[in-house]
C-alpha cells in the first residue's frame, strides 16, 4: 500500500504516534511487536489509566509509540476515557503532540470496528489503518479488497497478522510516510445541520473562553448527553452552557437529527457504504464453529461444569506446578544466604544481608512462580476467548454483589495471590467496578496465608484428623469471601455509587492462543511485580530487620555463633556441645529481640492485643509481618528462641508454641487464640507488595491506605470476636 519514498528523509526528528483500537483486536500484541521490551509504564495524573510508551526505529527514523486503552468508541463518559481524547487532540500536557495515529481493527469484524475508526478520522490527524487478524477473517470466509478499502477510506491500510509479526515492516513504513504527509480531510458523517450547530456552539464558547475548543470536542459536547466533555466544559464555562446545549439539541431534534441515536446511525451507514463491494463473504459455514463451542460452554448444564473444571484446573496447576519452582527459589535463597554466612563474620553486616536483604527479597521472589503461572493461565484464557465467556457465565451471580461478571476472574486469581488479581482488574472498564474489585481482592485468602493457617491448625488439630484440618482450612478460605460480600455491597452503595455498568460487550470468536503473545504478557507482568513491589518490600524488610536488631549487645551471641560454626567445620563435632550451644544461641536471640525496638514495641502494644488473647510475642509477630504475612512464622520462630530459621513444618516451633505460657502458667495457644490469630491473618492487609500494586493501579496513595485501614480494623474486630466468643464456648463446654 505504501508509496515508495525514494530517499529516506535525513531529518530524524522523533515522531510521536498513538495506537488505538477496539478490545480484542490484538492491539497489545501489535504494541509489543513494534516496541518490544522497551515499554515504559506509568499513570496519567489523576486517573487510573495506564500510560504506556514504547520506542522503535525504522531506518533512521525513531518513533515514540503511545498505547491508548482499548475502547469501542471515542465518546468519553468518564475522566479515564477523556484521557484518550486529550492525548489524540494534543491536550494532555504530559504527552507530546501526535504526528500520526494508528488505528488497529479486527478484519473479521470490520463493520463494527470502523465505528471507532470513523471517530478517529474526525480528529484531523494523519492516520494509518491496520487491518489485523486477516488470517482469522480469511478462515471465516471474509475477503477484503485492501487497495480499494484504502482508497475508500482515504488513508493507508496495512493488512497484518500481528501475532505472527506479518506486515510489521510495511506498517513502520506507512507510519513514517503518513506522519510526514498532511492529514486527509476529516470525515464528516453527520447531517450538515449538525456541523452548523457545532460551529455556532464553538463561536459561543470562543466568546466565553477566548478560544474555541477543537472541532472534535465541540461535536462531542453536542453528541454526548451528560458525557465527560459536557462535565469538563460546564466547569469551565458555567451553567449557561447547559441551556445552550439543550436548546441546540432541541433544534437538532426538530431538524430530524435526534441525539444520541443520530451519530451511531450515521456512522454505521458510512461504514456500510465504505464496505460495499470491498468486503465479500464466501461462506458463513466456518463462522459457526465458534457458535457451536459457545452453545456448549454456555449450556445450562455443561456451562457451569466446564467453568468449574477450568477454574479447578488453574488452581491445581498454580499450586502443583509452581511448587517445585518455589522450592527452587527457596533453595537458591538458602544457598545465597549460606554463601554470605560462610564468607562473613557474624555481625551487623551479615545479619543485614542474610536476615534483612536475602530473606526480604526471597520472601518476594518465592511468589514469582505462582504469579507467573497465574498470568500464564489468564493470558491463555484471554487470548483464546474464554475469558469473555467466564464473565458471561458468572455475570448474574456477580450482579447480586453490585459487580459484573468481569470482576470474577480477578477475584478468583486473588486466591492464589492478590497481586495478579489486582492487575487483572484492568479488563474492567467501569472505574467504580474496578475500584471495588481492587479493594476486596486482598480479602481472598492468598497462598501466603497458607503457612500461617497450616502452622496454627496443626497446633490444635492433630495430623491424624486430616478431614477436621481440611474443614478448618476451608472455613478460613470461606471467611474472606463471606466478608468481601458485605464490603463490596457497602462500597457500591457509598463511595462507588452509580448506575450498574452495562454488560454490553463483544464475545470474541475462539482462537488458538498466540505463544509469543502469552509469553510476553507473562514476562511483562512478572517483571512489573518484581521491580515495583520488590523495591518496597525490600525496603520494608530492611526496616523491620533494623527494628528487630537494634539496640542490643550481640557480642555474646556472635561468640556463640562463631563457636557453632567452627564446631560444624570440624570432622567430628561433639553433638552435646553443639546442642548446648544452639540452645544458648536461641536463648540469646530471644532475649535480644525482646530488648530490641521491635520487642519494646511489642510490650507497648500488649494491652491492645490482649483482648484478642495474644501475648506480646504474637503482637510483634503481627507488627513485623507488615511486609508479608508469612513472615509471622519466621518471627514467631525467632521470638520463641528458635532463631530465625523455621518454617511451618518444623515440629520444634509447633512444640514451642504448644508449650508457650503466660507468666501465670496458663497456655497461650488455646483453640480460641489459634483461631483468633488465623482470623486476623485471614482478614488483615499485611502484604506490602499488594498495597504497592493497589497504589500503582489506582494511581493514588489513598486507596492502599484505605485498604490497609479497613482490613486491619476488620481483622482486629474479627480476631476479637473470635477470641471472646471462642472463650465463652470453651468455658461453657
Amino acid at each position, binding site marked *: 500500500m505504501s508509496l515508495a519514498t525514494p530517499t529516506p528523509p535525513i531529518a530524524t526528528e522523533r515522531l510521536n504516534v498513538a495506537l488505538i483500537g477496539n478490545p480484542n483486536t490484538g492491539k497489545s500484541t501489535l504494541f509489543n511487536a513494534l516496541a518490544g521490551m522497551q515499554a515504559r509504564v506509568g499513570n496519567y495524573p489523576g486517573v487510573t489509566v495506564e500510560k504506556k510508551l514504547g520506542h522503535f526505529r525504522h531506518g533512521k527514523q525513531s518513533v515514540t509509540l503511545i498505547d491508548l486503552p482499548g475502547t469501542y468508541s471515542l465518546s468519553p463518559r468518564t475522566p479515564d476515557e477523556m484521557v484518550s481524547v486529550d492525548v489524540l487532540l494534543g491536550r494532555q500536557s504530559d504527552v507530546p503532540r501526535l504526528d500520526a495515529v494508528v488505528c488497529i481493527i479486527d478484519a473479521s*469484524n470490520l463493520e*463494527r470496528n470502523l465505528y471507532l475508526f470513523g471517530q478517529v478520522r474526525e480528529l484531523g490527524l494523519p492516520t494509518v489503518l491496520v487491518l489485523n487478524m486477516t488470517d482469522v477473517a480469511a478462515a471465516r470466509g471474509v475477503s477484503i479488497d485492501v487497495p480499494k478499502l484504502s482508497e475508500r477510506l482515504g488513508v493507508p491500510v496495512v493488512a497484518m497478522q500481528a501475532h505472527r509479526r506479518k506486515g510489521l515492516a510495511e506498517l513502520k513504513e506507512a507510519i513514517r510516510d503518513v506522519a510526514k504527509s498532511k492529514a486527509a480531510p476529516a470525515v464528516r458523517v453527520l447531517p450538515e445541520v449538525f456541523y452548523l450547530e457545532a460551529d455556532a456552539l464553538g463561536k459561543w464558547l470562543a466568546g466565553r473562553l477566548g478560544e474555541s475548543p477543537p472541532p472534535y470536542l465541540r461535536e462531542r459536547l453536542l453528541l454526548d448527553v451528560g458525557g465527560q466533555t459536557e462535565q469538563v466544559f460546564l466547569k469551565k464555562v458555567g451553567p449557561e452552557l447547559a441551556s445552550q446545549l439543550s436548546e441546540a439539541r432541541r433544534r437538532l431534534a426538530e431538524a430530524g437529527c435526534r441525539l*444520541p441515536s443520530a451519530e451511531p446511525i450515521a456512522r454505521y451507514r458510512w461504514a456500510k457504504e465504505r464496505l460495499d463491494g470491498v468486503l465479500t463473504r464466501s461462506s458463513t459455514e466456518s463462522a459457526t464453529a465458534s457458535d457451536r463451542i459457545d452453545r456448549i460452554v454456555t449450556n445450562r448444564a455443561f456451562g457451569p461444569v466446564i467453568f468449574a473444571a477450568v477454574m479447578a484446573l488453574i488452581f491445581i496447576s498454580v499450586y502443583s506446578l509452581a511448587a517445585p519452582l518455589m522450592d527452587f527459589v527457596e533453595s537458591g535463597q538458602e544457598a545465597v544466604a549460606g554463601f554470605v554466612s560462610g564468607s562473613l563474620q557474624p555481625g551487623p553486616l551479615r545479619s543485614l544481608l542474610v536476615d534483612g536483604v536475602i530473606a526480604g527479597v526471597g520472601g518476594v521472589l518465592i511468589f514469582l512462580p505462582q504469579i507467573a503461572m497465574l498470568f500464564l493461565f489468564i493470558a491463555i484464557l484471554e487470548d483464546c476467548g474464554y475469558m469473555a465467556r467466564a464473565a*458471561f457465565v458468572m455475570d448474574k451471580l456477580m450482579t447480586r454483589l453490585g459487580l459484573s461478571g468481569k470482576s470474577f476472574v480477578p477475584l478468583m486469581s486473588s486466591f492464589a495471590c492478590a497481586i495478579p488479581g489486582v492487575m487483572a482488574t484492568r479488563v474492567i472498564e467501569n472505574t467504580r467496578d474496578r475500584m471495588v474489585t481492587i479493594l476486596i481482592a486482598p480479602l481472598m485468602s492468598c497462598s501466603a496465608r497458607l503457612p500461617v493457617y497450616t502452622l496454627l491448625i496443626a497446633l490444635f488439630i492433630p495430623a491424624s484428623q486430616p478431614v477436621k484440618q481440611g474443614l478448618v482450612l476451608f472455613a478460613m478460605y470461606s471467611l474472606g469471601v463471606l466478608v468481601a460480600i458485605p464490603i463490596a455491597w457497602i462500597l457500591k452503595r457509598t463511595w462507588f455509587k452509580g448506575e450498574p455498568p452495562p454488560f454490553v460487550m463483544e464475545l470474541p470468536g475462539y482462537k488458538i492462543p498466540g505463544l509469543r503473545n502469552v509469553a510476553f504478557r507473562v514476562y511483562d507482568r512478572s517483571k512489573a511485580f518484581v521491580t515495583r513491589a520488590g523495591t518496597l518490600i525490600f525496603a520494608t524488610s530492611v526496616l523491620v530487620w533494623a527494628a528487630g536488631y537494634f539496640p542490643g549487645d550481640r557480642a555474646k551471641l556472635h561468640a556463640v555463633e562463631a563457636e557453632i560454626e567452627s564446631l560444624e567445620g570440624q570432622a567430628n563435632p561433639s553433638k552435646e556441645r553443639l546442642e548446648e550451644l544452639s540452645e544458648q544461641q536461641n536463648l540469646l536471640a530471644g532475649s535480644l529481640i525482646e530488648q530490641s525496638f521491635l520487642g519494646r514495641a511489642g510490650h507497648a502494644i500488649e494491652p491492645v492485643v490482649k483482648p484478642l488473647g495474644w501475648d506480646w510475642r504474637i503482637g510483634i509477630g503481627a507488627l513485623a509481618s507488615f511486609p508479608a504475612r508469612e513472615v509471622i512464622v519466621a518471627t514467631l520462630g525467632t521470638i520463641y528462641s528458635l532463631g530465625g530459621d523455621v518454617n511451618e513444618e518444623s515440629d520444634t516451633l509447633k512444640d514451642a508454641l504448644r508449650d508457650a505460657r503466660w507468666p501465670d502458667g496458663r497456655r497461650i495457644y488455646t483453640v480460641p487464640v489459634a483461631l483468633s490469630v488465623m482470623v486476623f491473618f485471614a482478614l488483615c492487609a499485611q502484604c506490602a507488595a499488594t498495597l504497592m500494586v493497589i497504589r500503582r493501579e489506582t494511581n493514588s496513595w489513598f486507596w492502599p491506605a484505605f485498604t490497609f485501614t479497613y482490613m486491619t480494623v476488620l481483622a482486629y474486630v474479627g480476631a476479637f470476636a473470635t477470641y471472646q466468643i471462642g472463650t465463652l464456648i470453651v468455658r461453657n463446654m
Partner: protein
Amino acid sequence: MARTLTGLSRGETATIASVSGDDAIALRILEMGLTDGEEVTFLGSAPLGDPLEFSVRGYRISLRAAEAERVRLTTEEVRSENGSSEKWE
C-alpha cells in the same frame, strides 16, 4: 407492547426498530451496532438465564436482559432459522 430482543426464541432473527432511552447505556448499545433496521439473531443465554448472546453485524454480543429489553423490534414477520445465521448485506 412492542416486541423487544428479550422476546426472541433461540435462533430467531428480527429487525431492530429503535433503542429506547438517551442515557449512556442506550448510547453504548447503539455504538455496538444495534441501530435501526439492523438484523439481530438470538443465540442463547448464560446458564443462569442472563446475560443473553446475540449475533449482529457479523459478530457476537452479550447483553443483559435489562439491556436487551431496551431494543425494540419491528412488528414485521420474522424468519426463524435453526442454529445461527449471520447476515451480511
